[in-house]
Every structure is written in C-alpha cells, then in structure tokens.
C-alpha cells in the first residue's frame, strides 16, 4: 500500500529530524562554529587543560569572545586535530600541539599559522605580555622552519620519583650516577624479597624514547652526529640501551613492555614500586588524595649523570593556531590570554609547571611549594628548564616512526629477544632513512 510506505518514511524522517532539532535547540550557546567573536579550540586532556577550563568564562566576559572547547584524550585529540587540519577545515582555530612529536610534520604540511607577526605586532601583543619571559629552549622548540608555530604552555621532563621511606629502610641514598642507580635497584629487589618492584618505568614502544633520552645523552651522545646521521653506532649507545633495559626491564614489574605512565603511576601510588621513571607531570597522579597510598613518602630526583655527564630532556606542549582558522584574531586573543604572565601564574598556583621563568620565581607560587616533595619537584624542574634538551627524540619529519624504531628495539632487549648491541645496530639502520635527508631541517 503505497501511501502507508510514504507515511512510514515521512514519520521516520520527521521523528529523526525533530529529534535532531530538539537536541540542537536544547543545546548550549548557539551553534558551534559561530559567527564573529568566537573561537573553536581542540585541547588535549592534561593537567594544563583541566586547570585552564574553569577560567574560560572569565575570558569570555573580558573579551566578549565565545569559546567552544573540545577536550579529548591524547590519542583522540590528535586524531581529531589531524583530520580537521588535513581537510583544511576552518572549523578549528586553536589546538594543542606537541612540537617535539608532530612539529616538523605539521610545519612541513603547512598546518600551523606562523605566529611571529602576531607576537611582534604591538597592537596585537602589548609589552605586558612579556614574550621574552619564556624559557629560551622552550621557545626554540616552537620555532620550526624559521617560524614560531606555537606558544609554550607548560614544561615537563623525565625524572625519577622515589619512596623516601623505602630508601631509608633499605639503607640507600639518592643515586648520583647511573651505575649507582642500577646498584640501588638491585639492592631494593634483593631486600624486598621481590615484593616491591625497584622501579616502574616506560616500556611501551611509542612512549619509551621520552624517558630513554637522558640515558642516551648521559653517555655523552647527541641523537645525531654533526653530519646528521644517527649516533647509535657509537659505543655509548649500546651501554645506554643496556642500562635502560636492565633498569626498566629487569628491575621493573612484569609485563612492563606494555606500560606507560598510566601503569607506572598506578603501581607507584599503590606502593608497589620504590621508584617511578616518568614525567614531572605525574606528580598529580601519585599525590591525588583518593588514589595514593604513599602520600608524604615521596621524593624526586633528576636522572643521574652518566659517563657523559647529565643532560636532561625537556618537553613542552604548546597552543597553536590553524592556518585555516576562521577566527584568527580571536584565536590569538585566546592563546595570548592562556599564556599571559597573569594566567600562567594562576595555573602555576594550581600545580602546572610554567614555561615562564618569572612564574617559578614568584613568591606566591613559591608559597605553594609547601611540601618537601613540591620543593624538590621545582628544583628538578629548574634543572630541566635550564639545561634540558628539547630534542625528545632524534628529530625527523616522521617522528612517530622514529620513536617506534627506538622503542621496539629496546623492547626486544627487555624481552630478552636480542642483545643491546644488536638493538643498537637495528636502531641505527632503522633511523637512517628517517633522519638526515629524509627528515632533518
């Protein structure tokens, strides 16, 4: 019966459309892309974002700009940002970017809107913004291909958190060298009868290079030689791999090759690990009142020096503007606000490590460092900010693949499937086509 069919379809379509319209009507402030005086941001779910979000209504009142923020976990936000940029869509204005990971690739693809002209224009950026107040290595990491592609919003680096009570109990002190670190781990394993894991570190291949870097550099090696070739054919490389694999693999929890900060922090907070090798950001994980069994018993130190000295790694996230943004002026206002000295201080008071040097020296901020842990934490951060190497991994356009090459090889050593020497050779071979002429500047 024809009319019944038509009636049926019409009913369904009307229902669906009205459901949709209902949803839109009941929705928030108007439509998402909005007219002028709107900014659309896609941010990654990390402490910075969580600290910033409550202040956004202030910004909206101050400037009259409506802010539409979407926050997702790292994998998700990366995918959403990528798809939007690839499609040259104007739907996104501001996004969070990790220059050490995707910087070269995105810059090469032309996704970033260079910010040099915005920063240097006194009409857009008053002197009170104190652009020079950012730590120089961090700004350098945001300069790719000669352009400023983002503004740093935080600073972090790999460090080692430790259990002050266990160290006392086992009679060990904070290690000053890598070999001492290994020795300490050995003692912990023996004396705890296997009940406490000496150290919880990163084994997941894509996450590993971040914490592995300092071990490599502390053997006196840069990622690349002066001719742009990987340095994994030098003797120090084998030593670095062996040290890391032993430390994180042998003295770590079972199944560590699948672990990243999630598992490491959970283990440490549960009191099952004597040390945790991970980012300074993890302090909020391991000191969260509802999650931590070890409050008040935590200390932190920089990764100890090796034969080649002490060369920490420093990493920062940044806020960048999309080249295809529909609201560039508003986007700059937002970025400027989130990274201004005033905002950065407010965020620092909430525990976010600021890329602005003045903030860490601010007395109000100093006052929040009211536990031994927090004081130590700021100290190790200062070391990282001052001397940190912003090259988290060997620089290349296809940086994710670079990380995987390194991570997979070290994993295989940890799993006992190959020797450190073989791993080093494997990395050397794997990196060659990716860095240098393939990657590079």
């Amino acid at each position, binding site marked *: *019966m*024809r009319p*019944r*069919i038509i009636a*049926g*379809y019409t009913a*369904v*379509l009307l*229902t*669906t*459309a009205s*459901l*949709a*319209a*209902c*949803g*839109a009507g*009941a*929705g*928030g402030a108007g*439509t*998402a*892309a*909005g007219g002028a005086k709107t900014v*659309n941001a896609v941010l*990654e*779910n*990390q*402490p910075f974002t*969580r600290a910033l979000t409550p202040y956004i209504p202030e910004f909206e009142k101050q400037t009259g700009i409506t802010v*539409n*923020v*979407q*926050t*997702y*976990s*790292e*994998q*998700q936000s990366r*995918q*959403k940002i990528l*798809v*939007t940029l*690839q*499609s040259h*869509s104007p*739907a996104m204005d501001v996004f969070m970017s990790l220059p050490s990971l995707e910087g070269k690739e995105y810059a090469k693809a032309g996704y970033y809107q260079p910010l040099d002209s915005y920063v240097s224009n006194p009409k857009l950026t008053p002197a009170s913004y104190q652009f020079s107040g950012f730590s120089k290595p961090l700004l350098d990491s945001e300069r790719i291909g000669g352009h400023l592609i983002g503004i740093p919003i935080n600073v972090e680096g790999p460090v080692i958190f430790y259990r002050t009570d266990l160290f006392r109990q086992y009679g060990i002190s904070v290690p000053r060298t890598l070999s001492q670190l290994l020795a300490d781990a050995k003692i912990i394993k023996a004396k705890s009868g296997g009940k406490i894991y000496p150290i919880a570190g990163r084994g997941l291949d894509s996450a590993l290079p971040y914490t592995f870097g300092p071990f490599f550099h502390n053997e006196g090696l840069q990622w690349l030689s002066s001719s742009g070739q990987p340095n994994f054919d030098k003797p120090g490389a084998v030593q670095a791999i062996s040290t890391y694999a032993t430390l994180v693999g042998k003295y770590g929890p079972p199944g560590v090759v699948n672990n990243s*900060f999630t598992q490491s*922090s*959970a283990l440490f*907070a*549960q009191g099952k690990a004597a040390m945790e090798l991970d980012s300074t*950001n*993890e*302090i*909020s*994980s391991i000191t*969260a009142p*509802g*999650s931590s069994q070890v409050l008040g018993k935590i200390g932190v130190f920089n990764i100890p020096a090796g034969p080649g000295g002490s060369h920490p790694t420093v990493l920062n996230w940044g806020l960048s503007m999309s080249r295809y943004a529909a609201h560039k002026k508003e986007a700059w206002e937002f970025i400027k606000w989130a990274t201004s000295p005033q905002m950065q201080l407010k965020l620092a008071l909430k525990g976010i490590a600021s890329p602005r040097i003045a903030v860490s020296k601010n007395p109000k901020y100093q006052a929040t460092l009211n536990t031994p842990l927090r004081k130590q934490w700021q100290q190790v951060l200062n070391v990282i900010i001052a001397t940190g190497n912003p090259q988290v991994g060997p620089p290349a356009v296809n940086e994710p693949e670079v990380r995987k090459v390194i991570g997979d090889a070290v994993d295989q050593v940890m799993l006992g499937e190959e020797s450190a020497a073989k791993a080093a050779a494997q990395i050397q071979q794997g990196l060659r086509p990716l860095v240098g002429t393939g990657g590079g500047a």
Partner: protein
Amino acid sequence: MNSRTFRRLPIVYLGYLAAGILLLGPVAFMVLSGFHHNIDITVSPPKLGAPLTLANYRTLFGTLPFGRYIINSFIVAGGSTLIALFVGIPAAFVLAHLRLRAAAFFILLARMAPGVLFVIPLYLMSVSAGAPGNDVINYLFLIFAHLIITLPLTIWLVLPYFEALPSELDEAALIDGASFTQRFSRVALPLIKPGISVALVIGFIFSWNYFLFVLTLSNKNTVTLPVIAFNFIGQGTADWGGLMAAATMISVPAFVLTAVAQKFLVRGITAGAVK
C-alpha cells in the same frame, strides 16, 4: 514450559549461574568500582568490601555535561536505528524474496570496509554540508554516518527470517490478490518478530557504542558518550573510579533500552501489520 524442560530446570539454572559469573563478573567489578575510591580499585586481590562512595558520580555529573551526552547518544543511535529499521526491513524482504544476492552483498560492503577508511571522506562531506557550524545538520550527518553500521546489520540480521518463511503463505496471499507491499506488511512482517527484535537491539547497541565517527564529525554540542570514556586515563591522571562510573553510565541507557525494546517496541512495530 513442558515437563521435559521442567525436569531440567536445576541444570538450566546452574548454567545461568555459570554464565552469569563468567560474563557478569567483570561487569560487577566495573559497576562496584564506580562506587569505590581509586585507592581501592587498583589492587589485587580486589577489595570487594571497600567503603562505598558517590564521589565518582558526583564528579562525573558535576564536571561533565553528562545529561547532554546521553541525549546526543540517544539522538544519534536512535535516529540511525530507526531509519535502518524502516529502510532495511522492507529492503531485506525484497532481497530475500527476489533473491538479489549481489545487491545484498553490496549493502554488506558498507560493513566490510574498515571504519578508518570512512573518517576523512565523511568529514569532508560533513564540512561541505555545513555540519561543523550547524547543530541540526551535524546531528543529521552523524545519524547518516551511523547508517553505515546499522543499515547492513539490520538487513542481514532480518534476511534469514524472511528467507525461512514458507512460500505457501505468500502464494496464498498472492492468490487472494494482495499487492507486493501487502504481502510484505501483512503476511511476512508479523512472522519475523524475533528478527526485528534482534535487529533493533543490536543495531542500537552498535551505533550507541561507536566512537570513531563521532570523534571527528561532532562538534562541542553533539558529541556522544563513548568518546568521553577516553578522558579518564591520561597524563597526570588515572581516575579509574571515574572511568568505571562513566563506563557504567554509558552502559545503563543501552541496557535499559535492550530490556524494554524486546517487549514493547517490537510489538509496536508489528502491531499495525497484524491481521
């Protein structure tokens, strides 16, 4: 229930118990953990008797517009399931009746391609349709995109039921002078209620849980529940309690609908068609 089944009742309930423990054990863990503090969740052996707390749920509803997400999920999953039923069931009848194997396979093709393949093309399509800026278009596009999941599923779930219908009924109706549509709606449709029920439930659940398209296609106002689950585990935070609470909340509406759908909705769909 005949006497044979009655005698086997103890064994059946034993089976229920075994299946229940295996399948619902982790689920119970998930639901219970939503009411525990994080400290009590990341332990082995599981601390089942740990003190209960509503903190996770308070945070959940306090910091996230959870109600909004639930509504969005309903709109998208509900819309695409409804359309899939209304479009797919008649189509399945034709496919079964006329034995159009190639066409049926073609429809299944939508289900065969990896979801990743669709992400960018769909996004391009949605941008040119004006979806990012307009919520109504956004919802409609999300529903449209989710048809990739629900339509082939509905058709192929219902297909064997149509095929199993004896031809005599249809022939009889034909002799009685029924039109094609009448043979479908009056004769065939009432007989495949279990099939419709299955298609409805499964289509809805699959669409409800799918996050890949929603991540890229939605804007701030139209984003649905599953995408939120990722946010609980990240750098500087491992909010297992929050995650478990969120996972429970994500599952509850789907569960309720499943329980309800089987009874009422199927009856409603076939009510008008029964002689």
